[in-house]
């Protein structure tokens, strides 16, 4: 039948982290609700402005952007939480005396710039540890954390915890990161529940076409669930949308079995090296997991995967997959898509505190949980 | 075809850097009959080139007017061919292409242009240099190209600003005789600036001598020698008398 074309705005460039969307497109979840989705990548402020101006209808925007944008008259609404844990944190090398955020006092800390999620995350982290921006030497370095970190230009850096720490660690593993051998991460999510990225639309769309919102969210939700349950499949699909992603055969194999092993909970994996490891893993877990939900099994599976794959593919081939795994950990939650007023409150507080927001806004209007599909 | 040129109370001035007015020419009034050959002599800087520019329509007078066949000259016309005091060639065009430029602008077909240029080249002594660029020409050669460029137009009136200044005596004589031949056949109106009294007496029907800046007509001398004239005539007494008259007029300026 005729599908309704729809543009979905994402930030930056195609990335394995966008796999829920890719899955929803690839597996026909959007088609099931009558939509033909194309993706457009733009800068976050541009995404916000285009949606607010009614030029596009949906996009992925982070919570603090929604608050700031609404404060400046952009009628956009957050309708579905994609990330549940705030993806920002501080990365620091081990063995340099930095054991906690508090130890950063007086040290040189890199940051992309004094704005955006990184900055908000940093302030939150510092505040939770009794510090302010003035207690550290903040160094704007753009999105060049690994280079600056490994060259020792900065002693720690504000990063996206699902990505850069892995990049840095893999460099350290190759001995390519100066004196750094092992890195540690201090996630913002450990100290505060800030609202992160989610699906945003405009008030106009919400008012005129709530059904469309429901359809979009339904399809996306299915994609997100699949991604959480079946990371190898998600990765495999992502390789069709993201150029230059290596696809080691073992991942393609895994992608084929995940459905049955994780989802169906019945059949065992075929007797290959990885299959055996998988069976062993899930087998040992079995006694304790009579009542285990697929999501719990999946979490266990994700946890074990890096170890499982360790000698079955080159480390560089697995890097982006590991980025996906650590990203999934940020998505997973008891109720997908939901945000709480407290989280919004916390987010707004930080914005107020840093002066990014002059006055509080009516947070209730900034988001809605009304479209979240049931389990 | 030829054209009549009239200057009536014609004057020109320039602005100096400090905002003063520099009177450069005139006022002068004169008629040049259609088909006559007039030479212009006068001290350096007296406004001869300025006059030529006024008559060519390149510049507007500060007073009076210039007429071509009773029409006020408001802008350049193809009926008038102008040869500048400098050769003023286009350095990116070969001798041949510089020669044919006026025809090109007039929309003459290529083969006709080339034929016309090739017919002129030997008389200009440039037969071997049609493919040369102006940068590779001697001063006299460049001037000859410039002369050819105005002759090729076959205009009704020719304004020549020191056309032979850079030529040696022999070449100068030969080319001025060629010019006279051509003129006797075609009878365009010719107004020519020159510094050479003999040349003026040889070529002109009339010699206008200008005073110093701002140039006015100091003498208007008719050259009544019969035509066609030959170089040999210049040794005759009649010729010597005319030349003397001109010289005397110049000395008085």
């Amino acid at each position: 039948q005729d599908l309704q074309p729809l543009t979905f705005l994402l930030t930056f460039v195609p990335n394995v982290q966008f796999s829920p969307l890719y899955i929803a497109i690839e597996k026909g979840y959007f088609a099931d609700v009558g939509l033909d989705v194309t993706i457009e990548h733009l800068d976050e402020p541009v995404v916000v402005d285009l949606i607010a101006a009614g030029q596009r209808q949906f996009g992925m925007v982070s919570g603090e952007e929604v608050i700031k944008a609404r404060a400046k008259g952009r009628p956009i609404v957050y309708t579905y939480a994609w990330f549940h844990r705030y993806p920002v944190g501080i990365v620091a090398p081990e063995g340099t005396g930095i054991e906690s955020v508090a130890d950063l006092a007086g040290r040189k800390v890199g940051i992309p710039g004094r704005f955006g999620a990184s900055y908000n995350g940093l302030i939150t982290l510092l505040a939770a540890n009794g510090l302010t921006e003035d207690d550290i030497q903040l160094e704007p370095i753009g999105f060049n954390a690994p280079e600056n970190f490994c060259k020792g230009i900065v002693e720690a850096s504000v990063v996206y915890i699902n990505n850069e720490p892995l990049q840095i660690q893999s460099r350290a593993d190759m001995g390519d990161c100066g004196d750094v051998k092992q890195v540690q991460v201090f996630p913002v999510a450990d100290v505060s529940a800030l609202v992160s990225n989610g699906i945003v639309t405009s008030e106009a769309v919400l008012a005129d076409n709530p059904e469309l919102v429901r359809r979009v969210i339904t399809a996306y939700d299915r994609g997100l669930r699949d991604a959480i349950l079946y990371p190898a499949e998600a990765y495999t699909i992502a390789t069709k949308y993201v150029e230059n992603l290596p696809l080691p055969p073992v991942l393609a194999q895994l992608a084929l079995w995940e459905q049955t092993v994780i989802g169906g909970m019945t059949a065992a994996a075929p007797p290959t090296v990885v299959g055996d490891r998988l069976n062993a893993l899930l087998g040992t877990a079995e006694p304790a997991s009579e009542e285990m939900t697929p999501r719990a099994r999946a979490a266990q599976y994700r946890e074990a995967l890096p170890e499982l794959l360790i000698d079955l593919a080159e480390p560089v081939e697995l890097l982006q997959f590991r980025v996906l795994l650590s990203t999934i950990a940020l998505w997973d939650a008891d109720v997908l898509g939901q945000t709480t007023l407290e989280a919004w409150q916390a987010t707004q507080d930080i914005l107020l505190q840093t002066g990014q927001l002059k006055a509080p806004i009516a947070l209730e209007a900034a988001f809605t949980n009304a479209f979240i599909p049931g389990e | 075809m030829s054209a009549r040129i009239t200057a009536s109370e014609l004057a020109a001035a320039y602005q100096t850097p400090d905002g003063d007015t520099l009177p450069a020419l005139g006022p002068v009034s004169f008629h040049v009959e259609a088909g006559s050959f007039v030479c212009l002599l006068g001290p350096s800087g007296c406004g001869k080139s300025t006059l030529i520019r006024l008559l060519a329509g390149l510049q507007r007078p500060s007073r009076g007017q210039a007429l071509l066949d009773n029409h006020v000259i408001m802008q350049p016309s193809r009926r008038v061919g102008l040869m500048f005091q400098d050769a003023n060639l286009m350095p990116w065009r070969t001798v041949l292409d510089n020669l044919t430029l006026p025809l090109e602008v007039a929309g003459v077909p290529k083969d006709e242009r080339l034929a016309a240029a090739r017919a002129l080249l030997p008389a200009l002594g440039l037969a071997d240099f049609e493919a040369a660029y102006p940068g590779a020409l001697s001063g006299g050669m460049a001037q000859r190209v410039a002369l050819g460029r105005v002759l090729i137009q076959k205009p009704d009136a020719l304004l020549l600003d020191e056309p032979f200044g850079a030529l040696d005596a022999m070449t100068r004589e030969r080319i001025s005789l060629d010019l006279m031949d051509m003129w006797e056949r075609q009878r365009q109106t010719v107004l020519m600036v020159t510094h050479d009294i003999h040349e003026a007496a040889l070529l002109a029907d009339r010699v206008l001598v200008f005073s110093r800046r701002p140039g006015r007509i100091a003498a208007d001398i008719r050259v009544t020698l019969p035509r066609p004239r030959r170089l040999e005539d210049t040794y005759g007494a009649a010729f010597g008398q005319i030349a003397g008259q001109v010289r005397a007029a110049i000395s008085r300026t």
Partner: protein
Amino acid sequence: MQLNALPKSPTRPLTLPLAGRPHPFRRFSRRLIPLLSLGLLLLGWQVVTMLELYPAFIIPSPAAVLEKAIEVTGDGRLWLHASTTLAAVLSGLAVGVLAALALGYAIAKSVLLETVLSPVIVALQSTPVVAYAPLLIIWFGSGLTSKIVTGALIVFFPMLINTVVGIRGVPSDLRDLLRSMEATRWQTFVKLEVPAAMPVLLSGLKISATLAVIGAVVGEFVSANAGLGFLINLARSQYDTPLVIVAVLTLTVMARLLYGTATWFERRALAWRARGR
């Protein structure tokens, strides 16, 4: 001020102009007309916002922008950012232009140098800053130096090319003249090459002056604590479109001033053109 301060024709006879030669411009209207065109622009802007063709957060009203401008001027922030950027722009311009003059002069004289260097220079020019941003920050840090480097890099090429064409266009007859006087290389440079190449050099300077602004801003996009590029990014992240526009307008004014300085200099240096054909 204008794109090119030269009058188009030689000393004008004290007469009516000829067809095709426009009237000389009066000083008065010369000053008035830019204001007029500015006024028109403002009016057009006001009309667009009043027609509500675009939401105010995409094209805010002049009034909103003015209000913002007064605010950030009042608290000194604009001046802080503008002066930061200006310092980077001026240093970048100076470094880039001087390097381009020196290298351009050398290249104009030596085909060998040209052959060796041109691949490298074109490569530098066509490499986007983001590609070498990591090295930039590692080598030069995130302060002024990085911005000077990005500014100088973008300024360098146009100035270089125009220097080469300017120096090579010096009439060889005048070169011979100076040789016949046993002029030193420096004398030839100062007394012949610079003045003869001046129109083209100044045209390179004008291009460079405006590009220098962009260059410094790009440097500030990559990493900075202050400056108009930083302010634009900050304002964008705060969805403060009026502030974005204030910052951009400040950049524009800065570019305009630099450009105007070049034009003023041109008018002085090429005054002789107005005084003869």
